[in-house]
């Protein structure tokens, strides 16, 4: 088997939940520093695809490669656990509902994994927490618990938590969908900042304007397949597929 030359490569991804086929032969590549958006209606398989990349939802067929290493390779259970934990350390993930650890402060949320997995000292962890929380504008709330933060603030801490592992790739699954409208921009701002730093990102989103302004490429998914993909100005302005046009039209009406 040859190593793919792409930074992220998904080959013929197939996923079924029982009889329900959710991903149907999807192939996708992402280069280092690229930002790829995934749009599509509810249930089209966006989250499943994203979660297959760090094997949170293991594929039932196909391969995922990251930086020359196959993520979902066949190994004995014990070896696989070691391998996948290693891979996941390199991939940051941000969830719709934040999933911050409620019994830990912002600082502890950020430093827990690096302390456990990277063998850094308490002081190094402290510096790391300050650095990462400063980056997302949450330094002042470093000793707050999640319950004491707004949704937007929670999500920014969650991003800092992911960044503290120094990932090569960031996955965002509708990072702003659970937020009140007035809190969306503060999270988008952080993501834009990451884009400026050339972080490789795959972003599942319902926000077309944001996707259009930040992504190098956008994929439209429907019923488990990638219907159309291209640069945002092409995909959003001149979609070639009827299904894409339909989706965008409905979305525009919904937004009004």
């Amino acid at each position, binding site marked *: 088997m040859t190593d793919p030359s792409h930074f992220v490569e998904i080959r013929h991804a197939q996923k079924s939940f029982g009889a329900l086929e959710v991903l149907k032969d999807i192939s996708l590549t992402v280069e280092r520093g690229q930002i790829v958006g995934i749009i599509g209606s509810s249930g089209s398989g966006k989250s499943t695809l994203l979660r297959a990349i760090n094997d*949170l939802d293991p594929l039932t067929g196909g391969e995922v490669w990251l930086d020359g290493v196959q993520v979902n390779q066949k190994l004995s259970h014990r070896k696989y656990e070691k391998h996948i*934990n290693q891979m*996941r350390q390199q991939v940051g993930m941000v969830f719709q509902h934040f999933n911050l*650890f409620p019994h830990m402060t912002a600082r502890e949320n950020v430093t*827990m994994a690096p302390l456990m997995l990277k063998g850094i000292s308490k002081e190094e962890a402290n510096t790391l927490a300050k650095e990462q929380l400063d980056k997302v504008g949450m330094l002042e709330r470093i000793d707050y618990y999640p319950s004491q933060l707004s949704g937007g603030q929670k999500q920014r801490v969650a991003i800092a938590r992911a960044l503290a592992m120094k990932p090569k790739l960031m996955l965002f699954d509708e990072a702003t969908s659970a937020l009140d409208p007035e809190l969306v921009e503060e999270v988008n701002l952080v993501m834009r900042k990451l884009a400026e730093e050339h972080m490789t990102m795959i972003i599942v989103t319902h926000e077309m304007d944001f996707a259009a302004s930040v992504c190098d490429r956008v994929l439209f998914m429907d019923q488990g397949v990638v219907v159309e993909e291209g640069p945002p100005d092409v995909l959003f302005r001149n979609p070639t597929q009827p299904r894409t046009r339909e989706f965008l039209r409905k979305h525009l009406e919904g937004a009004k």
Partner: protein
Amino acid sequence: MGLGFTIIPKYLDVILLGCAWTIGITLAAAILSFIGGILFAVIALYAPWLIRQPFRLIEWLFMGTPLLLQLFLIYFGLVQIGIDLPAFVAGIIGLGLHFAVYNSELIQTAILSVDKGQMEAARTLGLSRTEALRKVVVPQAVRAVIPPIGNNMIALLKDSALVSVIGVSELTLSAQRVIGRTYRPFEFYLMAAACYYVINLAMEWLQRKIERRISISR
């Protein structure tokens, strides 16, 4: 013979010593039941089938039989296979394991009701399942069941009187011994009751303190 509480000071040292034993045994058994409860819960939910079986036996034994019998079994029964425990140690183990099983039930339910996004977030960062349980899931589950565990610990305090049957001079047995000498059951049983009441209050205070301490962190 009327009531005469003036006799109490003469035997106060015996009663207080009994009190100390009760507090000591209750505390030690409570700690054992807490740690054991977490351990049993994690084993029941996540250990492989073969490892779960002996623990199911323990669970059945401690839930399905009288505590009295469990204490006899540990104190008198184990001697036969060469395990000769001091009575108070046998008492702590018996009480501790008995309530560990009850705590385990509570903790299991709590673990299952921790949002599964918590485990996912921890795994996404690269933690193994065991690490994620230890750092993320179990601490949250335990926090959620502090109040009912507190109730179990009050029950434990009351049941600690049972260790008198294997000869530990805890509060109830001490009171009994004093009564044997003074023929003043009313005074000394009341005295013992007052002691239990005070210990009870102290435990409730401790529980509130623990709760307040960790509820900030939710």
